[in-house]
């Protein structure tokens, strides 16, 4: 018969609490966020902070530099200088003339010296080779097409554009607001434009970063997000204010705002999940519309291609505002260039004259659907008005109008004076005539 086991004693709670195994339970907290980020970066080999990397991105996928010996052969065309004549011709001749050590053996190979000054007797160090390689310019593959964003659509990819126009069409105008408002969930938007929900979320973020929409009220568990959808005019003005003038188009699927030089201005593309920032992290490159993109330098507006004529004079500020009232796509560069070209043709041209011809041209262009770049057309065609008879005709017309106006005003004044001089005029009419004349004089004085 098996022996009955003894009674089991309860556990010693104090001993458990004093157990050394409980020490350092929160030790994972000792790692500072920066150290954790560094560790994570090392682990994932992804730079989540957005700091610059020593090599361009396209080279990161290449394997790390191999040990010496293998690299020399592979990289000779890039890094090594051509085989040069040895300074010691005698030594070279002697070396080449030396008989092979054994029959059938190949003659000794002449090593090409590395341009850092090593002789062929001394092996180059790895540091020397790396320094040599880094000095050699690497060919930069051309990616994306850099274009100027003149229209709202220029800053959108095809899908973003579809989403924007859906939001605009569906949105409601409230009171006198120029923008429209819309409350919509991802599912609705996804269904409407036939794009996956995740992509819709990404596209909404990008539309916001491209200043096309704004989140008025973030969505909650029960209610969808409310968006403000800006009009095309508003978008162009907002983008211009923040210097978002150039885009890089990667086909029809991705468009990024960049600086004029092509350097990135906003976070580019749809970030992979590994590179996303967690909630609460301050973005080094803010993407929200409410936060202006502080990264990079605002592109210099007056820098143009070296082939083009440099604007020599700055345009008056009122010209810019008047032109923008006609078409918001006029930026400072376009205004300055237009003013310079017009002044070159007719040095005494006025702002009114420029605005007059631009207005005429824009009216024509609105009826012509074949013209895609209206501002470009204006910049080309309007200065020609100042070189021909058009400006003379305009001035003649205006002079004629001014004369007719002056004549008409003189006639009116004569009428009021005659009324005052007429003895049969009642006192009430005479008072009215005096009042009209005084107002007329005040107006003339103000104009002068």
């Amino acid at each position, binding site marked *: 018969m098996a022996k009955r086991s003894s009674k089991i004693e*309860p556990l010693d709670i104090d001993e458990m*609490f004093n157990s050394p195994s409980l020490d350092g339970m*929160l030790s994972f907290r000792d790692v500072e966020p920066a150290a954790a980020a560094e560790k994570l970066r090392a682990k994932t080999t992804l730079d989540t902070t957005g700091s610059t990397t020593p090599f361009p991105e396209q080279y990161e996928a290449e394997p790390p530099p191999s040990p010496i010996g293998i690299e020399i052969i592979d990289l000779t065309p890039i890094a090594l200088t051509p085989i040069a004549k040895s300074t010691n011709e005698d030594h070279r001749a002697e070396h080449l003339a030396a008989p092979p050590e054994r029959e059938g053996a190949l003659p000794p190979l002449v090593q090409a010296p590395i341009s850092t000054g090593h002789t062929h007797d001394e092996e180059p160090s790895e540091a020397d080779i790396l320094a040599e390689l880094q000095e050699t310019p690497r060919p930069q593959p051309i990616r994306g097409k850099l274009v100027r964003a003149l229209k709202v659509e220029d800053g959108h990819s095809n899908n973003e554009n579809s989403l924007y126009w859906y939001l605009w069409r569906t949105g409601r105008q409230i009171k006198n607001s120029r923008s429209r408002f819309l409350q919509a969930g991802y599912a609705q938007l996804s269904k409407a434009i036939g794009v996956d*929900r995740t992509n819709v979320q990404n596209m909404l973020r990008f539309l916001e970063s491209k200043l096309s929409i704004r989140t008025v009220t973030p969505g*909650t568990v029960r209610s969808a997000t409310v968006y403000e959808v800006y009009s095309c005019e508003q978008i162009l003005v907002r983008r211009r204010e923040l210097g978002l003038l150039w885009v890089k188009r990667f086909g029809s699927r991705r468009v990024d705002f960049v600086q004029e030089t092509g350097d990135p201005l906003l976070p580019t593309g749809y970030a992979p*999940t590994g590179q*996303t920032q967690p*909630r609460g*992290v301050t973005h080094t490159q803010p993407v929200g519309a409410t936060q202006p993109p502080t990264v990079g330098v605002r592109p210099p507006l007056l820098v143009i291609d070296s082939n083009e004529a440099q604007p020599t004079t700055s345009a008056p500020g009122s010209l810019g505002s008047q032109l923008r009232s006609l078409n918001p796509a006029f930026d400072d560069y376009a205004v300055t260039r237009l003013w310079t070209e017009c002044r070159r043709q007719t040095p005494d041209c006025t702002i009114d004259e420029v605005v007059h011809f631009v207005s005429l041209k824009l009216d024509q262009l609105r009826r012509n659907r074949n013209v895609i770049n209206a501002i470009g057309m204006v910049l080309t065609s309007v200065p020609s008005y100042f070189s021909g008879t058009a400006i003379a005709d305009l001035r003649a017309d205006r002079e004629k109008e001014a004369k007719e106006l002056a004549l008409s005003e003189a006639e009116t004044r004569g009428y009021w004076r005659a009324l005052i001089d007429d003895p049969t005029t009642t006192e009430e009419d005479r008072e009215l005539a005096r009042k009209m004349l005084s107002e007329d004089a005040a107006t003339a004085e103000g104009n002068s």
Partner: protein
Amino acid sequence: MIRLVVANQRGGVAKTTTSVTLARCFAEKGMRTLLIDTDTQSSISSILSVKPQFFLFDFLIQEFALRECVVSPHKNIDLLCSSRKTQQAEDLIATQQSRDVVFERALSDSGADREYDAVIIDVAPSFSWFQTCGMIYARHVITPVAMEPLSVQGAVASISAAMELNQLFKRPNDIRVVGLLPVMVNQRLAMTEPIMESLRRLSSQRNVPLLPTVRTDTTVVKASRDRLFLPDVDSKCKAWEDYKIVADAVLEILKEVPTAQKG
């Protein structure tokens, strides 16, 4: 609003079962309940057979809306599921300065405080960032204890962790274990009584209430197999009856918690 973390540093002590069943109990009482799974094993989505499109990672890291990430396995219950990427989320959270209040911030921003009457967070057995965040957010911890010594040791570790966090943030008794929940209790086993006695001592020494026991019940396994809640398999099973009593006891305890300690 009730916020609860179900934690024990020992695995296999019915943390997930307790979380799910308590959520169902609260839902039956008409409370809108949010159940959050922070365990990378994503057990809750497995045992309830839900296939969400987005997960905790998407909610915390991608900043998706809460309503996009939750699924509703039952009336009044919303479930925010975990996935294998939860570990990645945890790694990223660790790089933040405000990493302790990630849940607090994310759930407050999403309006969860207004939308739900109860939030239950199921955590992984090992002590990690999400367990810390969950404890700081919820401030109330329930510790299921199975009838074996290592489970008690896990409970001790949970109590100890809560105390350490309180010391760390200099907020005495802010995070507290509001109940030790004996689960898988089978009085016929010799080990049960010593463990219960240990729990009674632990309860009296550390001033942690000892909740009513939950008896061993094969329906729990059946429910897990059938991917259903306990009462959907057998509404009269022992475990469900016990959990209903536990839920009442928890609500009663939380009523007595001073207002300052309620979320």
